[in-house]
């Protein structure tokens, strides 16, 4: 039997039972659309997050005190990591030629007040390079001035929301706020930025790093940001950081994070989530498959005399099997194509409403759901088709 004739026969049989075939086709279409749309949303979330990271620049190296690996040292002896000090940061700035910017950070929570108004906010101790390293912009005034890192000075830069809370309609520039016990003059307001990596950039105070370490009474920095000029030199710079600090501390006791690693880890989590969601959607494809099986079973029992007739005219078992199987696969793949079209429309709509959300189904999801719809048809079609092919021709003909 020729493939085209087989297709023609199968198509004719499906066209003969439009309503039933149509309904099970819708089932498959919904299943496929669900898989594709949900993975598109998951993939969109992943891209959105990695986009956030990229907006920070991918050339950032983050140095954190303490090593997040098991060390060879005996617990109790040298267990606590050495401080990561301002002197360490200065050494890094001096000795790493690839570094464009080195920014020591001290971070904590403090009450910031002005008169009766007070607010508990994040206080970031930083240096002038922070503005560029974090891709921030000023709404008014100026950022922390270039100065020696170990010199405390009573100035503060406010997040836009905090400035409004404390000063309402007054001009905050030149005003005085209390950060903890200390007084500081407001020299600048940040441009509104929203949440960046879990920190609300609109509701914080930025002060010189030395001042922050005084407020918190700490010797150790929270971390050091290093911006490398060329992306390919990150690994080189990372090695330099570790070497320099190992030399200064006598042991390797810092952890370096690259933007790539962090966004990669988050992306990995989201990819797993996407897969999980796609798996759930896959269940609906299975349900659709059972729908196809149902249609095929009814079709076989209704067409039993036809099967007998075909067998009488010399059709072989395998040809009967192929005929019903092709019907099932035709049904499910047509459903798959319709589902894909529907999901394309759906993602276009999502992108129309939320232009910043890149809801694009990944190519593998399109391919996989199409393949899956074929497999579903074949898998759930095979049982009824086998039933048809095993009919005894004499009995199938109705005993006549």
């Amino acid at each position: 039997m020729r493939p085209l004739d087989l297709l023609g026969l199968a198509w004719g049989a499906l066209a003969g039972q439009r309503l039933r075939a149509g309904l099970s086709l819708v089932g498959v279409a919904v299943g496929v659309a669900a898989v594709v749309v949900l993975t598109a949303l998951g993939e969109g979330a992943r891209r959105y997050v990695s986009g956030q990271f990229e907006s920070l620049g991918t050339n950032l190296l983050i140095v954190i005190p303490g090593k997040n690996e098991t060390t060879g040292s005996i617990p109790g002896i040298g267990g606590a990591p050495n401080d990561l000090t301002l002197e360490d940061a200065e050494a890094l700035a001096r000795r790493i030629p690839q570094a464009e910017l080195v920014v020591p950070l001290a971070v904590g929570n403090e009450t910031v007040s002005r008169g009766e108004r007070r607010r508990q906010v994040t206080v970031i101790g930083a240096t002038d390079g922070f503005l560029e390293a974090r891709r921030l912009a000023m709404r008014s005034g100026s950022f922390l001035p270039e100065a020696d890192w170990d010199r405390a000075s009573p100035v503060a830069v406010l997040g836009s929301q905090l400035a409004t809370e404390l000063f309402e309609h007054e001009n905050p520039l030149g005003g005085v706020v209390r950060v903890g016990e200390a007084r500081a003059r407001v020299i600048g307001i940040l441009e509104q930025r929203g949440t960046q990596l879990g920190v609300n950039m609109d509701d914080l105070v930025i002060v010189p790093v030395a001042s922050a370490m005084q407020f918190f009474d700490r010797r150790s920095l929270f971390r050091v940001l290093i911006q490398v000029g060329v992306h390919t030199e990150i690994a080189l710079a990372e090695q330099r950081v570790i070497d320099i600090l190992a030399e200064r501390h006598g042991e390797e006791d810092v952890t370096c994070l690259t933007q790539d690693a962090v966004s990669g880890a988050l992306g990995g989590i989201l990819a797993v989530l996407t897969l999980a969601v796609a798996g759930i959607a896959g269940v609906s494809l299975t349900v659709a498959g059972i729908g196809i099986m149902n249609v095929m079973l009814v079709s076989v029992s209704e067409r039993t005399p036809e099967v007998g007739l075909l067998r009488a005219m010399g059709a072989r078992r395998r040809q009967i099997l192929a005929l019903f199987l092709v019907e099932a696969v035709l049904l499910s793949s047509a459903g798959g194509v319709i589902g894909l079209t529907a999901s394309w429309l759906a993602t276009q709509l999502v992108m129309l409403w939320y232009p910043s959300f890149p809801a694009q189904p990944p190519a593998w999801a399109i391919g996989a759901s199409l393949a899956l719809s074929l497999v579903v048809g074949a898998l759930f079609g095979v049982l009824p088709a086998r039933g048809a092919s095993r009919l005894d021709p004499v009995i199938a003909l109705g005993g006549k």
Partner: protein
Amino acid sequence: MIELADIWRTYTMGGEELHALAGVSETIEKGEHVAVMGPSGSGKSTLLNMLGCLDRPTSGSYRLAGREVGDLPDTELSRVRQTEIGFVFQSYPLVARLDAAANVELPMVFAGIGRAERRERVRRAMQAVGIEGRAKHRPAEMSGGQRQRVAIARATVMEPKILLADEPTGNLDSASGTQVLDLLDRMSADGLTLIVVTHDPGVARRADRIVVLGDGRIVRRMAGSQVTDLARLFSGSEA
């Protein structure tokens, strides 16, 4: 052409053995026109299914054109049905969704014959049964006689050597019945081996000879012209 030797077909029903055929031996020559008669349950249909390779004998030998076919595997039996045998049934079952031409074409589709040749052979087969004007009609748009002629065209389109007909006029009025029988006679005269199962003495009369079954055995053999005796045998069943 057909040699049956001591054919038995036994069914087991509720632990009891039923002999649908109990030792049938018969030889049918090429080109013969044979009628099979007998009361209901005498084994006529079982014999026809056996002859048509739709069923296998429980024991005994069936040689078709010199080749033993009684124990062929299913694939081989299908091939024999495809190339050697045509079936015509009482209820002229056509595939309802296909038009007449497509129904006639069907056996050739399963045989893997190319499109152009199929079209030509469909045309000839439909012409031979006199329904060439109905090629695009669906079964529901045709009369019983026309449908049975489509079925005959379909049964003969593969140019089989044997045509098996089970009550071919059973559902037809007498005028279209006569047309169909004339058609079968003509095909038989052209050399086709024709075996007709019937209750109807009027149908059997046209055969060269008649085989009468009773309880799975051949109880009588006679010439077609002797059918009036038979009418007396089944009293009151004369058409």
